[in-house]
C-alpha cells in the first residue's frame, strides 16, 4: 500500500484569547488526502476550517500535531527545510483580487511565482506563462492587465494559475468560489476539476456551501467547533449521514426546487455556535443537538466506525437509524 499524499494527525492550533483563555480554534484534527483526490472540509463560520488549511502550509504554526507530506512531518521542519514543501503545497483564497499584488500585471504575477522557485528561466519564461494562462482560460490579451481590471472570475483564474505555476501536489482552496456569481462559480469549478484530472492535483476544498462541496469532493470531513465530527466518502455523507450535526447541516441547505423545498423535513437547530474559547463539556455539539442525552455532557464522544471509510464521533449513533437525506431526516 502506498502512503497518502498528506496525513494530518491530531492537529491543534490555539490562539491567545481574551482574559488568558486560549481559543482552541483547531483541537485534535486528523485526516488524510490521497494523491489526485479532493477532501471537502465543511462546517459553520468560525469552526476552524481556514485555520486548519493555513496550518497545513505552516502559515500558522500548529500548537501540536503532525502534518506528514510524503512520509516527512513538515510541522517540525526549519524554514529552510520547509522550502521545497512550500512549492508543493499551494493555497488560493476567497477574495482572489485582494490576494494578488495590485501593482503587478497578470504576466508579472505568474512570472513572479516561477521566479521564486527558479522555474522556467530565460527564453522559456514567456512561453511558460502563456501556456499556464491558457490552461486556466485567461486569453493572452489580458497579460498586461492589473488585478483591478479583472472580473472576479478572471482574478480567481489568475490566482489558480499562480498556484499551478510552481507545479504543486496539493492546493488548499479556501472558499475559492464563494464570492463569485453562480454562473462564474460553475466555470471555476469545472476548471478546477479539469486541472485536477490533467495534472493529478489533490485539493483540500474548504467551503460552507455543501452543494458545491458535494459536487467537487471525493471525501468529506464535517467540522464543528475545532473538531471533525464525521468523515466519509461523499456518497456516504450524502446518502447516510450519521452525526446529528451533519444531518442538520444537510437538511438546512436550500434546494432550488419549490415542491421539494416545501415538503422536505428540516432539522432546525437552536442557537449559535458556542465560543471556541469555552467549548461545552463532553460533546461540543450537545448544546444545539436535537437528540442529546445526559451522558453527552460527560463523555467526549469516541469515533464510531460505520464502514471502512465512514466514521463519526457521537455516542448516540447506534440508536439512530440511518436514513437517506431525501427520504426525510428523522431520528
Amino acid at each position: 500500500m502506498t502512503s497518502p499524499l498528506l496525513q494530518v494527525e491530531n492537529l491543534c492550533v490555539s490562539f491567545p484569547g481574551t482574559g488568558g483563555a486560549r481559543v482552541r480554534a483547531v483541537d485534535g484534527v486528523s485526516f488524510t488526502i490521497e494523491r489526485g483526490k479532493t477532501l471537502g472540509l465543511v462546517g459553520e463560520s468560525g469552526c476552524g476550517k481556514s485555520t486548519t488549511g493555513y496550518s497545513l502550509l505552516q502559515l500558522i504554526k500548529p500548537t501540536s500535531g503532525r502534518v506528514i507530506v510524503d512520509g516527512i512531518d513538515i510541522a517540525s521542519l526549519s524554514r529552510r527545510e520547509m522550502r521545497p514543501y512550500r512549492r508543493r503545497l499551494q493555497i488560493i483564497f476567497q477574495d482572489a483580487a485582494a490576494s494578488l499584488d495590485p501593482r503587478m500585471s497578470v504576466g508579472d504575477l505568474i512570472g513572479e511565482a516561477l521566479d521564486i522557485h527558479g522555474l522556467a528561466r530565460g527564453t522559456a519564461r514567456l512561453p511558460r506563462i502563456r501556456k499556464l494562462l491558457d490552461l486556466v482560460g485567461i486569453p493572452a490579451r489580458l497579460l498586461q492587465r492589473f488585478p483591478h481590471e479583472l472580473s472576479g472570475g478572471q482574478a480567481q483564474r489568475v490566482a489558480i494559475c499562480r498556484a499551478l505555476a510552481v507545479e504543486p501536489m496539493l492546493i488548499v482552496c479556501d472558499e475559492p468560489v464563494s464570492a463569485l456569481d453562480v454562473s462564474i462559480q460553475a466555470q471555476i469549478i469545472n476548471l478546477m476539476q479539469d486541472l485536477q484530472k490533467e495534472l493529478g492535483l489533490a485539493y483540500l476544498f474548504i467551503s460552507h456551501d455543501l452543494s458545491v462541496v458535494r459536487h467537487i469532493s471525493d471525501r468529506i470531513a464535517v467540522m464543528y467547533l475545532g473538531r471533525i465530527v464525521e468523515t466519509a466518502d461523499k456518497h456516504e455523507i450524502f446518502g447516510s449521514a450519521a452525526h446529528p450535526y451533519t444531518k442538520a447541516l444537510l437538511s438546512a441547505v436550500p434546494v432550488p426546487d419549490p415542491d421539494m423545498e416545501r415538503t422536505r423535513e428540516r432539522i432546525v437547530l437552536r442557537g449559535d455556535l458556542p465560543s471556541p474559547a469555552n467549548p461545552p463539556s463532553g460533546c461540543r455539539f450537545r448544546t444545539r443537538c436535537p437528540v442529546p442525552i445526559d451522558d453527552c455532557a460527560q463523555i467526549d464522544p469516541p469515533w464510531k466506525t460505520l464502514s471502512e471509510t465512514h466514521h463519526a464521533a457521537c455516542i448516540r449513533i447506534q440508536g439512530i437509524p440511518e436514513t437517506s437525506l431525501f427520504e426525510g431526516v428523522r431520528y
Partner: protein
Amino acid sequence: MTSPLLTVNNLRTSFRSDRGTVRAVDGVSFTLNRGEILGLVGESGSGKSMTAMSIMRLIPEPPGSVEADELRFDGIDLLALSERQMLDVRAARIAMIFQDPMRSLNPVLSVGRQLTETLRRHLALDGAAARRRAIELLEMVGIPMAKSRLGAYPHEFSGGMRQRVMIAIALSCNPSLLIADEATTALDVTVQAQIVDLIKTLVKDIGASVIWISHDLGLVANLCDRVNVMYAGRIVESGPIRDVFYRPSHGYTLGLMSCTPRIDLVGERLRPIEGLPPDLSRPMTLCPFLPRCAHSVDRCRTERPALIEEQPAHWASCFADLTGSWRQTT
C-alpha cells in the same frame, strides 16, 4: 379586486460616470400584491439592489437618476413625496433589511434604545409602553433573556442575533412591505434556516408583503410565491414560482438553473454560462444575454425580444423554444 400594494412601471435608474451612463435599472415593471412574497433573482450587477433602492428612494441624485412612469405604494405616488414624507414611509410603512446588519444598526446606541426610539416616534408609544413592546419584539425574534439584553450594543451580539435584532426593528412598526436584500447571505445555513422560518411566520402574522432579493435559488424556491428574474437591468422572466422553476422560459433563467450545483443531485458536470455579463454603459439593441446564450435562434440576432405573457401570468422575453431543455420532474 383589491389593487396591488406596489406598482412599478418602467423604472429607469442610471448613474453618470466618466465612462458614460450606466443603466443599472433599464425599464423595470412589476406589481406586488398584498400578502405576497416576491423573489428577485439574477446575475450579480443585474440591478436587483438598485431596483429596491430606487423604490425606497435611496439613490443619491446626482450621480444617480431615478425615473419611472409610475411608482405607487398603497395609493401613494412615491415620486411625488418630499424627502421628509419619504422618511416617514421608510420608517413606518416600508422596511428594509440588508446582508450586513451593521448597515442598519447604530453601533453606539443600545439595541433597546434603537427599538424604543422607533416605537416612540412612529407609534407614539410612551416610554414604558415602548419598553414593553421592545421586549416583546426581541422575544418574538428569538433573543433569549430579551429583558436583560435591552442595554446591549450591537457588537455584543453574534451575526445571527444581530440579524434577528434588525428584523425586530424592521417589523416593529408593522410595515406593509418588507424588502430583504440578501438578508441571510452572510449567515450559516443552520442559522439561515432559523431566520427564514422566522420571517415566514412574522410576515404572515402581520400580513406584510415581501420583496426577497437573493442569489440563492433554493431560498427563493422555499419562500416565494412569484419570482422576477433580472439580467442586465431588466426583468427577463417573471411568473409563479413553480412555472419559472420547472418551465424556465428565458435562456438566462434556464442557464442559471442548470449551472447551479444542487445538493440533491449527484455529480453530473456543471453547465456554466460561458462569458461575462455585458457592460451596462453600452447601448443594447439586441437581447443582452445573446452573447452567452446556448439556445439562441436566428431572430435573436435581428431584433430585441419584448417581455410577453407566454403562459397565464408567466412572462418572458425570449425567442427561443426551451421546452426541450426542461428538467424532467417526477
